[in-house]
């Protein structure tokens, strides 16, 4: 791979200015996704679901096709797919609706210190309000969760396990299936934060053993403002609705109300039909490229990057030494240079990496760093990107007078 054939599909790269390596924060969008949203507004725009005229029927169809595309992507039924705003809202939905209803004083919620805040704070809210307790699995520095940790902390009291599929800092894939099997044995439900996995790994909710699974459209090249929650049908059915309002009811009188059937029960108010339609275009694009190709590109580039970085004695990479265990995510520090300065200085050469705690402060503390710089790759990155970053590193030290 000397030339990345996909790069040309992404308009943001056409001016040749940016070496974008912050896809774990948000992906870039291909022409087809941008065009899909435009097409929606130009030729099928109406409020879906309740309209009896052609435009509204087209809007409804576009929206429900998107739901089918998502369900196909992760091996679920369409009625088990709830459109939300982002992964964060998906996880909060489970916390508010499932957590506050089915967890009680003394119950335990098991999660890890490496979770993104979005898969940690909702569970703390549940704990505060129900009297349940949150326990944290502590991984090794490369992200490995040892069996002894699991055996100690997953108990008969554990009612809910919240686990990230791929860490947004270390890039490691967690053994969700094994944890799910153990959790199901003790009767707990398993919530998977798949924000960093669905864009990169073939994900199947049944194979994973996920009872709930959350991800964001914008990280897999879809629009902002559209996210996904998968929920096992029987669980969704017994849960109370979360947001209340239009579109999620069956009937309302002054005395009471009944809820709409799944998935509408959880989709209150006017839905983001254009966003869903854009997400469908993103899934189609992703499928055209194929997970195998994505994998290959990411692993090759991650390997290149890590090879060079490890040669600088003042650079330290977080997580595994094996590039194939990084899912395109390389977090690093440079001795004597604060990550914010790394990012700012690289920006001077049009190289875009993130710096900070990556919404994972407890993991930072666990790793013994205050923050890191993070390069995260996706299917549109190329050798030039990685070379530009690698070669810029010594310059950073120079600029800082080191």
């Amino acid at each position, binding site marked *: 791979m000397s030339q990345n054939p996909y790069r040309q599909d992404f308009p943001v790269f056409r001016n040749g200015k940016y070496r974008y390596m912050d896809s774990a924060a948000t992906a870039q969008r291909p022409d087809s996704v941008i065009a899909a949203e435009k097409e929606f507004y130009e030729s099928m725009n109406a409020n879906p679901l309740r309209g009896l005229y052609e435009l509204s029927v087209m809007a409804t169809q576009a929206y429900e096709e998107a739901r089918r595309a998502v369900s196909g992507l992760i091996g679920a039924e369409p009625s088990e797919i709830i459109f939300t705003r982002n992964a964060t809202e998906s996880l909060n939905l489970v916390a508010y609706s499932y957590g506050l209803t089915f967890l009680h004083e003394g119950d335990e919620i098991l999660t890890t210190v490496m979770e993104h805040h979005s898969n940690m704070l909702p569970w703390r809210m549940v704990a505060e309000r129900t009297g349940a307790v949150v326990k944290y699995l502590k991984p090794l520095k490369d992200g490995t969760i040892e069996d002894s940790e699991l055996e100690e902390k997953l108990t008969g009291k554990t009612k809910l396990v919240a686990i990230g599929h791929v860490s947004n800092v270390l890039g490691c894939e967690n053994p969700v299936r094994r944890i799910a099997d153990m959790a199901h044995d003790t009767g707990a439900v398993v919530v998977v934060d798949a924000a960093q996995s669905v864009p990169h790994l073939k994900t199947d909710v049944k194979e994973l053993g996920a009872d709930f699974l959350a991800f964001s459209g914008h990280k897999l090249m879809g629009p902002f403002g559209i996210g996904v929650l998968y929920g096992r049908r029987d669980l969704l059915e017994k849960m109370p609705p979360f947001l209340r309002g239009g579109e999620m009811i069956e009937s309302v009188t002054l005395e009471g109300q009944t809820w709409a059937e799944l998935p509408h029960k959880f989709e209150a108010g006017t839905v983001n039909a254009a966003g869903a339609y854009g997400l469908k275009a993103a899934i189609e694009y992703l499928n055209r490229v194929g997970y195998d190709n994505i994998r290959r590109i990411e692993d090759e580039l991650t390997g290149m990057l890590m090879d060079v970085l490890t040669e600088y004695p003042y650079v330290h990479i977080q997580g595994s030494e094996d590039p194939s265990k990084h899912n395109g995510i390389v977090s690093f520090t440079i001795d004597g240079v604060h990550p914010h300065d790394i990012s700012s200085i690289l920006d001077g050469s049009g190289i875009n990496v993130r710096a900070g705690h990556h919404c994972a402060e407890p993991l930072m503390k666990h790793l013994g760093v*205050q923050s890191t710089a993070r390069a995260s790759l996706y299917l549109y990155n190329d050798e030039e990107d990685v070379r530009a970053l690698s070669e810029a590193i010594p310059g950073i030290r120079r600029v800082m007078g080191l």
Partner: protein
Amino acid sequence: MALNSIYGEILNEHNLRPVHKGRIENPSLVLDGKNPSCGDEITIELRVNDEDVIEDGCFTGSGCAISQASVDMMLDLIIGEKRERALKLYEIFMGMIRGEAGEEETEELDEAMVFKDISHMPARVKCAVLGWRTMREMLDGRLSVE
């Protein structure tokens, strides 16, 4: 990308070899400043005497080059000055960053003028002003060691 002009000898000198990093004797004012968006944290100590003169000052804590250098330069400027003068310098510094301060005024900031263009990098403005904000809060007289 204009930001890179901020990085350079002056900034590096204050970042790598800060004059005022450490502790002072008998501080009369101590305050933590925190930049929530990046987790940077500093503590400033000042000793202000009965005549309202800032006799000495120092800082501890970690942060990016911009926040570290900025607070060090600030201490250079305010040590030996009166409380009002320090607060005046704060106004000038903030004015410079908002692009509202006149050139003459700005000259009073001496080395701290390197942050003139930080507004091109809004995400870093908070780093540059962290020390200054903390100092202002301290001198506003609402906080003291006792």
